[in-house]
């Protein structure tokens, strides 16, 4: 009976729950799904992390390579994040080049890396004007169930913290790089941006961490990214129902508490790798 009602009138079904300030999956409106972080599971990558928010799963693998620094900034390296939504994660995606959603997510992640100054691109330079690291960060969605941005952001931060780069020396005589795989060092991660997404229902209810179903029914979406100093690195609201300034403040407060939750989880995950 309930299943039938849900199929025919999904929005009405949700309203019945929202009136009681809860959601069909049993969560409260401000409650996240269970978040699990698994770091360093891909040994072929220089750093990796698998993050799950409920069903939504994203795997981030970082591979570091040598390249020449950009001509306009000879003291910098590159960070190249790309989000991949393959047909594997949901049948709504087609094979081939990335679609709009994947492109938008890639751009968002790249913007956050730039805005938050989470790592200085100057640190990726090995020899001024000659050699620099390029970090290819590939974010592959394995299971698509809403709140892609939060999951990607978390996977990226965890994977970057897991990166170990081999030490490099430039041979004075030949001018070539010499890599020593035995001594490795971590990246200097200065900031840990955490994203928190909301779905707006009927212009009044704010649901944190929406599932795929909730995203489809919502009248608007909002993503807030904060760092540990409670500053905002990005806020993104692509249209949808209008939001008053007070509602926005509510979202920001929730995002700040979420940052603490995720930081704890990240530390736990990273510590478990070190102790192995």
């Amino acid at each position, binding site marked *: 009976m309930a299943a039938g009602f849900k199929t025919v009138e999904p929005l009405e079904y949700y309203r019945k729950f929202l009136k009681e300030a809860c959601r069909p999956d049993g969560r409260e409106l401000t409650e996240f799904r269970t978040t699990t972080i698994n770091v360093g599971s891909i040994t072929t990558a220089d750093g990796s992390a698998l993050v799950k928010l409920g069903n939504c799963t994203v795997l981030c693998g*970082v591979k570091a390579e040598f390249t020449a620094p950009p001509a306009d900034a000879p003291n910098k390296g590159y960070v190249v994040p790309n989000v991949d939504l393959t047909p594997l994660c949901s049948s709504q995606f087609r094979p081939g080049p990335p679609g709009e959603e994947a492109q938008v997510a890639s751009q968002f992640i790249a913007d956050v890396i730039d805005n938050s100054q989470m790592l200085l691109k100057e640190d990726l330079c090995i020899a001024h004007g000659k050699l620099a690291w390029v970090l290819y960060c590939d974010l592959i969605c394995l299971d698509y169930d809403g709140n892609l941005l939060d999951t990607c952001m978390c996977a990226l931060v965890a994977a970057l913290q897991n990166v170990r780069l081999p030490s490099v020396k430039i041979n004075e005589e030949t001018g070539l790089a010499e890599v020593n795989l035995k001594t490795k060092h971590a990246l200097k991660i200065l900031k840990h941006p955490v994203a928190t997404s909301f779905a707006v229902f009927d212009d009044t209810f704010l649901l944190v961490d929406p599932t795929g179903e909730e995203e489809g029914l919502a009248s608007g979406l909002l993503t807030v990214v904060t760092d540990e100093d409670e500053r905002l690195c990005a806020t993104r609201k692509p249209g949808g129902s209008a939001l008053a300034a007070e509602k926005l403040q509510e979202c920001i407060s929730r995002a700040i508490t979420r940052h603490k939750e995720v930081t704890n989880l990240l530390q736990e995950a990273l510590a478990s790798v070190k102790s192995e």
Partner: protein
Amino acid sequence: MPGDSRRIRGPEESQSPLLYVLSEEGGKAAGRRGRGPSEPRPVFVRAGLLSQAKGSAYLEAGSGGTKVLCAVHGPRERGMGGERAETRGRLLCDLRWAPFSRRGPWSGSCPAGPSPRQAGLQLQESLEPAVRLDRYPRAEVIVWVLVLEDRGSALPAAVSCASLALADAGIEMFDLALGCGLSRGPGGELLLDPDDDEEEAGSGGTMSLSLLPTLNQVSGLISSGEWEGESSEEAVRLCMEGCQRLYPVLHQCLVKATKRKIPVPQPDTN
């Protein structure tokens, strides 16, 4: 192709730091890590772990070894443009490698190894004999396989993983199709389920076989290099044995996944 406008662009060119590693110290893997020549790596499998797919499976060979994830969509109506009304369904397979799945260079938009098209075709040919496609006329079943980490024998792992996912999706099948790889070392020794070092070294010949274990029929066999009558017979026999050893693991996993799936009490909210 770094000029793809639909991705974040990186530099025009980049090289793997492994090319610049000082020689001598290239950490040689400790042989077979204590495995015998005809001993496959231990396998971990799980079925039904993806929420959006009809059926799914994950397979990991050895710790820190090859990791493969598979999702199955369908059966669904075949799109327009197909040939005349066919009495058999169609099985579409897609096998890809994640850009960071190999130890060598990053392989962004132009993946290393066999082309995805060719790999997909090989996978399809190995799976097709196991699936009862005559039960799905004018429909298609789509198999997506992603290699998350390739530490050798990725194609055989993909075959086993995909057949498990097909079974998990409830597609009618004659049998599971299990894959096993083999490579001939430089000294002519046969190494079952080779890892990536052995695959690279074993340019003397490689073989990948897929078997329907209960019917004891071979559904696919791909080999490269020069094989002689006797040694190839031996290789096939070893591969078949390897597949048979895999069967109980997958069988158990499938039983577990099905048990998990069946009793779902629906609380009536009305």
